């Protein structure tokens, strides 16, 4: 590292000017959006991903996006990605050419994404079980119809992984391979979220009965509190790397996604917190969703569990436990990244390749058990 005072001063001036220019751009953009009359929420395009897509199915606000048709040379099982209910689905498609979806499309894999859309007051009565059992069933049926296959592979990220696992347990005959990315399974872990949500002081009924839903701003602020100094450290990092256009571009895109949270429908949030965080039913057993008993041993297909070692939202042990609960072979992949770093950025490249190879193996290949 060069510590020449002249070089340091020059670097400081460069960084300051680049940061000032970036701040100016952001301020201008914010001012423009503030002055321009904002379109209504229903008209806004919730998907801000980089890869072109076509909508193959739409029900109310939910959509299934298709990224790649079946390749003639490489017949593979269609892969449906299930994002979390609290974030937008385009996290797996943030950067052009360096996202999981872009990687799969490059390899001609038939890729689909479930976009939950923006929930409104008409969705506040929908339970978590309804989302997992019925809405996901509509989406997988649409994918199977489009790809003309009997089964569909699933990939879930974070809460979407929990939902994908539960859906696979409820509809095992329709699901082939399953990939879980940074997925919480054991909710009674040492994570901060688990501590907050499982404490008897937190009355989920009172929140839902009063607000009707879990507001996105509340969720956003609680995520900021998980690492209180992270915002300062983040902007310090931006300042130091402000003259790197690639870094600033990815920073802006990631920030846009991080601040683009959606509210969770009330009943869904109530059931999710109760059965997962408070009662830990996935591990303890006795989980009933939408009137149906859920048995994770019914998941007999190959499962790929991608774990982020530096994850502060889902600690590694929380996801690792899945190997003891499901009935099929489990392959574990550990990535030295955080909760978001596992899905995008340079460290996620390993995950892109692992996931692509895992789902390209096809339905008939027997997976080596690594657990």
């Amino acid at each position: 590292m060069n510590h020449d005072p002249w070089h340091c001063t020059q670097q400081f001036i460069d960084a300051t000017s680049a940061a000032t220019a970036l701040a100016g751009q952001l301020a201008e953009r914010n001012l423009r959006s503030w002055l321009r009359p904002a379109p209504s929420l229903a008209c806004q395009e919730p998907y801000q991903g980089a890869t072109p897509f076509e909508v193959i199915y739409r029900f109310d606000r939910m959509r299934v996006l298709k990224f790649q048709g079946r390749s003639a040379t490489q017949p593979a099982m269609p892969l449906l990605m299930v994002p979390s209910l609290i974030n937008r689905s385009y996290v797996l498609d943030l950067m052009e050419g360096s996202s999981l979806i872009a990687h799969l499309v490059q390899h001609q894999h038939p890729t689909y994404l479930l976009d939950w859309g923006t929930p409104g007051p008409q969705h506040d009565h929908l339970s978590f079980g309804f989302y997992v059992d019925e809405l996901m069933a509509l989406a997988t049926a649409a994918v199977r119809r489009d790809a003309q296959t009997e089964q569909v592979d699933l990939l879930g990220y974070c809460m979407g992984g929990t939902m994908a696992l539960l859906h696979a347990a409820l509809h095992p005959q329709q699901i082939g391979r399953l990939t879980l990315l940074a997925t919480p399974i054991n909710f009674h872990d040492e994570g901060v979220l688990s501590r907050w949500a499982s404490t008897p002081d937190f009355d989920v009924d009172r929140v839902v009965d009063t607000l009707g839903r879990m507001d996105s701003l509340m969720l956003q602020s609680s995520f900021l509190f998980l690492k209180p100094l992270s915002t300062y450290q983040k902007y310090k990092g931006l300042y130091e790397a402000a003259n790197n256009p690639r870094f600033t571009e990815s920073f802006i895109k990631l920030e846009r996604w991080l601040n683009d949270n959606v509210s969770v429908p009330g009943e869904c949030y109530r059931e999710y917190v109760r059965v997962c965080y408070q009662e830990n039913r996935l591990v303890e057993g006795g989980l009933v969703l939408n009137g149906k008993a859920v048995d994770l041993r019914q998941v007999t297909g190959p499962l790929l569990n991608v774990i982020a070692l530096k994850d502060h939202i889902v600690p590694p042990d929380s996801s690792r436990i899945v190997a003891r609960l499901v009935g099929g072979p489990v392959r574990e992949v550990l990535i030295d990244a955080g909760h978001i770093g596992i899905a995008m950025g340079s460290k996620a490249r390993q995950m892109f390749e692992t996931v692509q190879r895992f789902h390209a193996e096809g339905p008939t290949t027997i997976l080596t058990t690594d657990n």
Partner: protein
Amino acid sequence: MEQLMQEMMKSTKDLQTFWENRFAQLMEEMVKSQNFITAMTRSLEGSLDLRRLIDSAMGRWAEFYQVVTKKDLALIQQQMYDQSVRLEKMVALLETIRDAVCAERPAAPTTAETATDATADSPKAARKAANRSR
């Protein structure tokens, strides 16, 4: 002199990073503590109580003036959503039946046969046949 300055800058930066990381760790431990959780839930309860107070006052006002509230509209929207779910399920079921029936059908006839059948089945052909019979 230059060497000394470089060393000073490096050690200052290292010291700053060390204390930043230490402070971050301390804050992360703090948010896990029971005291913090209790304080957070209490502040949340206070906000919820206020919100409930406002909601109940608005509800009484709406009831007094016989005004439709957002909650009433949301209930209607929820009922409509439930109906649309039922319809969507029926559509999915009908599509499954249609696919099954299509799969059970015998192989499609040749192009010439299809053309003849199509002519025969067309309304024009049917009208001609009816005229002939008259």
